[in-house]
């Protein structure tokens, strides 16, 4: 049981790390730090960095939370700690 709960927590943290990296890249990365570079690319009338800052990052945030909820459900079942 002890090993099991350690495995569960490790899997959870692994998922969190993966998602937080994407979360950081789309907002702080594309939206702020690399905005001047990305703005040289145009997408549908938007400078790309500006688009990430005012639109894109928000859509990706939503996708990230639903992806997290789904994956955590799978991890819960795999380690048999899900709710009934």
């Amino acid at each position, binding site marked *: 049981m002890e090993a099991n709960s350690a495995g569960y927590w490790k899997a959870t943290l692994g998922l969190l790390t993966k998602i937080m990296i994407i979360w950081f890249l789309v907002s702080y990365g594309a939206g702020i730090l690399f905005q001047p570079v990305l703005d040289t690319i145009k997408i549908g009338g938007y400078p790309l960095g500006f688009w990430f800052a005012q639109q894109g990052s928000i859509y990706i945030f939503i996708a990230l*939370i639903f992806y997290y909820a789904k994956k955590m459900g799978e991890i819960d079942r795999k380690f048999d700690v*899900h709710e009934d």
Partner: protein
Amino acid sequence: MDLQTLTYLVVGASFALYIGIAIWARAGSTSEFYVAGGGVHPITNGMATAADWMSAASFISMAGLIANMGYGGSLFLMGWTGGYVILAMWLAPYLRKFGKFTVPQFIGDRYYSKSASTVAVVCLLMASITYVIGQMTGVGVAFSRFLGVSNETGIYLGMAIVFAYAVFGGMKGITYTQVAQYIVLIAAYTIPAIFISLNLTGNVFPQLGLGGTLVGTDTTLLERLNQIVVDLGFAEYTTSLPGSRLNMFVYTVSLMIGTAGLPHVIIRFFTVPKVSDARYSAGWALMFIAILYTTAPAVAAMAKYNLHQTVNTAVATGGDLHAPESSLVYEERPAWMARWEKTGLLKWEDKNGDGRIQYYNDATKNADAAAKAEQAGWKGNELTVNADIMVMANPEIALLPNWVIALVAAGGVAAALSTAAGLLLAISAAVSHDLIKNVIKPDISEKGELMAGKLSMVGAIILAGYLGLNPPGFAAGTVALAFGIAASSLFPAIMMGIFSKKMNKEGAMAGMLSGLFVTLFYVFAHKGIFFIKGTEFVDLIGGPNSFFGITPEAFGAIGALVNFAVAYVVDKVTKEPPEHIQHLVESVRIPRGAKAVDGAH
């Protein structure tokens, strides 16, 4: 039917709806009062969270702020949405598993100390009360501008409506009125935006219209807007930075972790039946929020373009902005300008005596723009525009029917009321549950606690109303301060409580207090001790924004870093938390065994 009557009818109908819900959703137990009985569907909770979250500031002021700040305004968009990713993955499911009524109760139990819970109550009250002041003044502003009543009458009316459903319904009444308020406010926000986007770009989705091409030309909206504002001496719209890129970065971090640490948002996730529901519910909440937050930047750019287009005819034709005949003749201004001039939100002063309106940046650092203005004989900017106009005058600018204007009024009021109610619940729960039940009178009966909860709610409404009527002169800065406090005190304590088994009470308390202290110190240095004018001590810290150019509004993230660092050091030199606390943390981490939320200690 004239506009005033129609507005009264629409707003009156929305109030009737909220009171109807209040009568249906009375709270009969502490569980219903604190967490709506714990049986709220995740989508319903998502919608209620969205209304809880989107305040008068989001609805009325945010688009105007973005219009003024351009690209820099993105920090509000990312900051106030990205926090939900943190909330969904780091806090909400674990606090739901913990299964108690309030945030301070988690801190008290996890750090095995009533003092820790009391420190958390103090932080919570400071964050929530400063936040609610902003909402009450927002209620007054919404009423007075839309309904033509005085600010005071507006606040009394708002207090009466919130009283009706928050005191009798508690979280249960608040949840279901918030759902109704969400529908009213999102319709009120998106309908004018859709029509404005259609007018300007021919695109029915404002989110796409913002990147679209202006109707009848092959120039994009953003390109044209950049040309105009630069020509008139303002900063380029799509690249202007708020101070520095570093400040924008840190400000965004502060808003994100402040969002995740605000108690009135966290407690919404105690109302869903299961841990997995809490995870999905955060996704739904962000989706409902995003409908407004992805529309707002479009409203900002389009309203800014429309305003320039109205006062300068060369904006649409592509002619010379500085030609004498391009500036709008004051006497020929559209009716909506005359209407908003009466409120003082729009002011014109004919500095060069030509009877025309010149709207430009007369303090520009752009030598080219300054020279052009001088050559044209302009003697200074003549139009003062309050940023709130960008949302409130939208339906009129887009020539929409009167019922849309009335709907926007109802939406503004709904946004202010829903957030105020959520905050008032967080405040009254902290008083009745964490102070009265936990510290002062632990043997209080369930019925007694419910009564105490309702009385605390009455007290909180009166306090909020009083502060709204006599704003302490810092109403404008309150929302930023609330985020700073939540980010620097509550967020790190909760997070470490879940993610570290070894963090002890000494570390957590020292962390919360030092994070709070550092943040308040930096803010007060700029704005005065408790915002009292004349008590600023900014020279003492080496001048304004002396800490790497970080503005006081953005300082919450630095406060949080201090909190983490102090907690870590103090934790290392004091003794480990007891065995049973480490087991508690383990059980919080797994979903199995989640029970209905209750208040037992």
